[in-house]
């Protein structure tokens, strides 16, 4: 299905992503881990074509993605939804409108400029919101929602695109543990029930282990690990995070119990 081949991105001297190779044969839930600056976001942004690759190629179902331009590129973006750490919603617009932005690519510019969407789309948007458990929030402004709810709106927008792939760039990094769990579970459900491919950048090991079928580890732009969650031992994790022997997994954890433990530890420190 998806083939990433020697994909490279350079910002000036800095190589953010360095000849990454990933091959995915069937819809999988993939977690990408790595410490800050490892190149995770850059990789996803290239897949969504928010930024251009410096070298290498991305192929999806035989179609070359990296060379798409203009309408073809936008068409690809509509098939490849993206979820951001900061949700990237339009805060002053209501929830349903934000979800409907997922259909922008399919609708004529003129109609959408005046916020004219077909009734069927509106109904579908509300159904998706219902599926994510936030249908009651439909008429509210996005900015009035809690972080977890906003992220679910972003997921709803992604689902509205009816995409083949959902890319999620640290979707739970700005959420508290409770909300993080809800959001990750939603992504997992979407993957399982709709059979969509999900690629999520995650900054904690245990989330990756718990929700993903496959984990990719990045370090300094290079892919240094690619395997099942089981293969991801503490040693490998140390390697990915470039940490010494003082590395404790709990430090990257957001799971609720772990968190409490670490907070208590900190308080005693």
């Amino acid at each position, binding site marked *: 299905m998806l083939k990433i081949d020697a994909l490279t991105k350079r910002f000036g001297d800095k190589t953010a992503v360095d000849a990454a190779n990933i091959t995915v044969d069937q819809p999988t839930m993939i977690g990408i881990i790595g410490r800050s600056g490892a190149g995770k976001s850059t990789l996803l942004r290239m897949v969504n074509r928010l930024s251009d690759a410096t070298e290498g190629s991305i192929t999806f179902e035989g179609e070359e993605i990296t060379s798409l331009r203009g309408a073809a*590129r936008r068409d690809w*973006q509509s098939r490849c939804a993206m979820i951001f750490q900061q949700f990237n919603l339009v805060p*002053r617009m209501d929830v349903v409108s934000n979800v409907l932005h997922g259909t*922008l690519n399919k609708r004529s510019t003129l109609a959408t400029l005046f916020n004219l969407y077909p009734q069927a789309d509106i109904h579908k948007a509300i159904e998706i919101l219902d599926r994510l458990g936030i249908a009651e929030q439909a008429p509210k402004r996005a900015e009035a929602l809690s972080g977890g709810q906003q992220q679910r709106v*972003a997921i709803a927008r992604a689902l509205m695109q009816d995409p083949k792939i959902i890319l999620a760039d640290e979707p739970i990094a700005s959420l508290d543990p409770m909300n993080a769990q809800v959001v990750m579970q939603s992504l997992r459900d979407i993957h399982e029930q709709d059979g969509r491919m999900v690629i999520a950048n995650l900054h904690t090991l245990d989330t990756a282990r718990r929700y993903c079928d496959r984990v990719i580890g990045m370090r300094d732009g290079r892919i240094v690990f690619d395997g099942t969650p089981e293969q991801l031992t503490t040693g490998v994790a140390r390697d990915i995070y470039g940490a010494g022997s003082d590395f404790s997994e709990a430090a990257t954890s957001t799971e609720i119990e772990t968190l409490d433990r670490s907070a208590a530890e900190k308080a005693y420190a």
Partner: protein
Amino acid sequence: MSAVDINMTKQYADDLFKRKRLIAFAIPTVILVYLTYIFFAFDVSGLAARANWQNAVTLASDSWSHKIHVTRDNRSGEISYAVEGERKGEYPQGERPDWVSGEEIITIDLGAGHIVRYLPENRTEVEIPGYPLIEVQAEGRTVTSNLPADLPDWISASSRRIGITTPEGRITLTGARTEVFNYFPGWELFWFTLDSPYHGVGLGQILFGEQIDPTRSNIAGAVFDWWNNKMWRHKDVAWAICETILMAFLGTMGAAMIALPLAFLAAKRFSPIMLLRGATRRLFDFVRGVDALIWTVVLARAFGPGPLTGALAILITDTGTFGKTFSEALENVDQKQIEGVSSTGAKPLQRYRFGVIPQVVPVLLSQVLYFLESNTRSATIIGAITGGGIGLMLTQAIQTQQNWEEVAYYIVLIILMVMFMDWLSGWLRAKLIGTKD
């Protein structure tokens, strides 16, 4: 801390306070020096000498009172009664104020014992309590009187003219005519001029009383006569206010509509071509720098006097101002929202519509509405230059230097108009953006 250290700290603190004192003294001193310079440059001391407080008193008393002239033309012997001495305020034939009496000898009672009598053969008697009776005779070009040589300061006299000013009224006597001005509080004829049948009729009677003018219904007639009042010209005033607001409205909104697309060209985020960006910005700076005043002058040649010229002058200047602030707002937009919208495959226009516009609209709108209010004030001045609106009426009323009650009326209206626009723009802002952002 050791004794040495603390002494050093003390020393340091002393220096600190010396410095602070120096600054504290320096700033007021600079300001004082500047104000002293201004005092001489503006010749403030000379101003105090030149200031005419009599004018101020006239202005203040005239603005809330009116006077009725009783005039005798010494050649024809004819006597006329007119509010403010204006033709429009003349009493209809056969009518006169009730403080005037007599046929052969016209007795004018100014109140508080001040009495003026127009005697036959152009003689006049003025009776003022506490002062000997003044007798004046007008002959041809000269006036003769029994006034002594040294006069109190409220009487001015020469062989050609005598002027008497008392708190009850004013009397001027020349060879050609004799005039008495009697002052009353209030704006006379504000509702109806003397030739209207509704003058002096109570509101209740107009609303519910029997028909006064057989040809018209009371209300319609009263409204018509009031609207077309020749003294106060309510119709013209209303039009002038509308014109002023119109200038502000057209100018502000037009400028906003032109500036918005141009602002995209001037914003770094949206306009990658440096040259184009620079050119747009210089254009904004230029039209703003030239200033509404000069634009008014330039446009007056092309479009002539009137509200459109004023509106265009505001429009051009504000295009520059809005262009600048709008492009600043555009440069501060949050990239996240744009990216969120782009990631769905939205087309460029859609990206602007949903990624950019919702973010900048509150900023732009509150700017525009703020300017709507302040432009109402500008339009008043610009109108005075281009010849339109309430500003022109005000300047001209002031230039006549006598219709102070009209000036006061216009001033009140202008203040109300500006306050109304202030309220309106605040209300719209709250409606459209929400009270606090």
